[in-house]
């Protein structure tokens, strides 16, 4: 089904609003964007096309683990991110690749900057979303593939990308 301009704009707005929730550290509200069968994946920088669960990756969360991740990040005891860092994310080049009445598959480029302890860590890459239409859009699948060849010099990817 062809992608009309209004739907494309709707999805782009959705991604922009999502980015705002993350930058404002409104992580509990961000969680509300996901379906119960959601999956959030960050593949290994050395094997980005590997199948999650069969090759090592960085993140392969179901909704329970994603909730655990947010609970950890907001607990004050996830020391890597407590006190919390500033982040600023740029989501661009949004493409809606597949569209059915119920689902949309979209990709976008991202640049997420994390600022903490006087340092700026830019992480760039590509998002892939599978969105489900359900009172607006919900995220069923969210994949953030980073372009870094290794996680250097930052070490961790412990914020939500």
């Amino acid at each position, binding site marked *: 089904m062809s992608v009309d301009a209004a739907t494309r704009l709707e999805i782009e707005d959705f991604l922009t609003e999502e980015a705002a929730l993350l930058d404002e550290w409104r992580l509990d509200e961000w969680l509300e964007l996901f379906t119960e069968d959601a999956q959030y994946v*960050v*593949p*290994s*920088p*050395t*094997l980005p096309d*590997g199948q999650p*669960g*069969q*090759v*090592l*990756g*960085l*993140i*392969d969360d179901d909704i*329970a*683990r994603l909730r*655990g*991740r947010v*609970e*950890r990040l907001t*607990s004050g*005891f*996830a*020391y*890597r*991110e407590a006190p919390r860092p500033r982040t600023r994310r740029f989501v661009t080049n949004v493409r809606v690749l597949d569209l059915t009445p119920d689902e949309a598959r979209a990709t976008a480029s991202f640049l997420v900057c994390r600022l903490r302890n006087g340092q700026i860590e830019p992480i760039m890459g590509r998002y892939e979303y599978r969105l489900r239409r359900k009172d607006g859009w919900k995220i069923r699948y969210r994949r953030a593939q980073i372009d870094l060849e*290794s*996680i*250097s*010099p*930052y*070490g*961790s*990817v*412990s914020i939500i990308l």
Partner: protein
Amino acid sequence: MSFVQPTDLVRDDPTAGVFRVHRSSFTSQEVLDLEMERIFERCWLYVGHESEIERRGDFVRRTIARRPVIFLRGSDGEGRVLFNSCRHRGAAVCRAASGNAKAFSCFYHGWTYDTTGRLINVPDESPYGPCFDKSELGLTSPPRVQSYRGFYFMSLNPDAEELPAYLAGAREYIDRLADQSQAGLRIVPGGYRYGTKANWKLMMENFSDTYHFETLHRTYLKFLSSQAGDNRKEWDEYNRVAVFGRRKAYDLDNGHAAIEFGYPTNGRIIAVWHPAFGPAARPGVEAARSRLVERFGEERAAAIADNSVSVIVYPNLILLDIVASILMQVWPVTPGYIEVDNWAIGPRDETPEMLARRIEQFELFVGSAGFGAPDDMEAVESCQEGYAASAGQWSDISRGFHPQSSGDSEANLRAMWREWVANLASETHGAHDEARKPGVGAAAR
């Protein structure tokens, strides 16, 4: 601060039960230079696992002790390490991270080597004259390359003792890992590297330091507890008792050291089920344990299956055999910056379901985006920053050292440090000579 003697950097007083390391050990470029010369250029260093070079022609590029190398299986079936530098002018002959090759052709002038390192082709050879001998111009190897149970090591020291002798007591733990499967082990694809702004020894300590676990990793423990479902109370109690009662530290000689948890921490994919693995995984895990009992008897099977352990394979490899089996190798870049290689390793014949559980548990705890490792990085980076406070200060590693102390011990960390200081103080070529300090022995203190 400039140090006078390496032996001034460690205070090792068994009578007083005091063990301290001078903080310039973590910050001084002079110390790092000496470490490169007397540790990294003398000891055996892990290069890779046989499963990474399964077929003839398989290769992996690595950098070991700042040397670019190719870890490969030659057309003759032999596992090898070759320096990745053309004999002509020095360019890299292998430029892919990994793959399979019949030959390595230098992109600069086209000198070509086969997978055993032999120089097989030189474009337009005649201008070199009659004395030009290709057989003398093969890719060179490190002076020593050996493997133990599929784990390949190299040494830049031609006089290094044989690898099994060097590994000493660490062999036991490599054996326990290798014995997990009759089919052999394999590195799970997707291993990666991360950087950390800390000294390499801080990270080595951290991976073998159990004291920080309940403090630093409370969010991980909390999440696991939430996954334990109906068994939550039982597992929480299990962890509480185990944490304070069962850990034992071992000096394995030559700087190698282990800390045994004395129980299967939060389950072990290999053979001890935990509720977080999900009920569907239970029969498979229990069957795996039964197979170990059949193969080795209950006592040995228990050692392999039930006991989580962190092993320092001196100088820079960590074998963290906990819920999943993890290899980590720590490379100093500057005194305050390291690169850490991370691999998951498991049975070659694992079912896709168990592999998925293994990967999930790796990602959850030691992964770079996990619920544990990021906080480890934060802690060691914070220590490194703290050393700017006063270069004259000492770090304390005295737990369990005093003759009258009991319970938890950092004897494993002291074993590493004693070898470290002995190595730095030794001007001779042998990696492990008699420069040890008094008071060092097999006893884990």
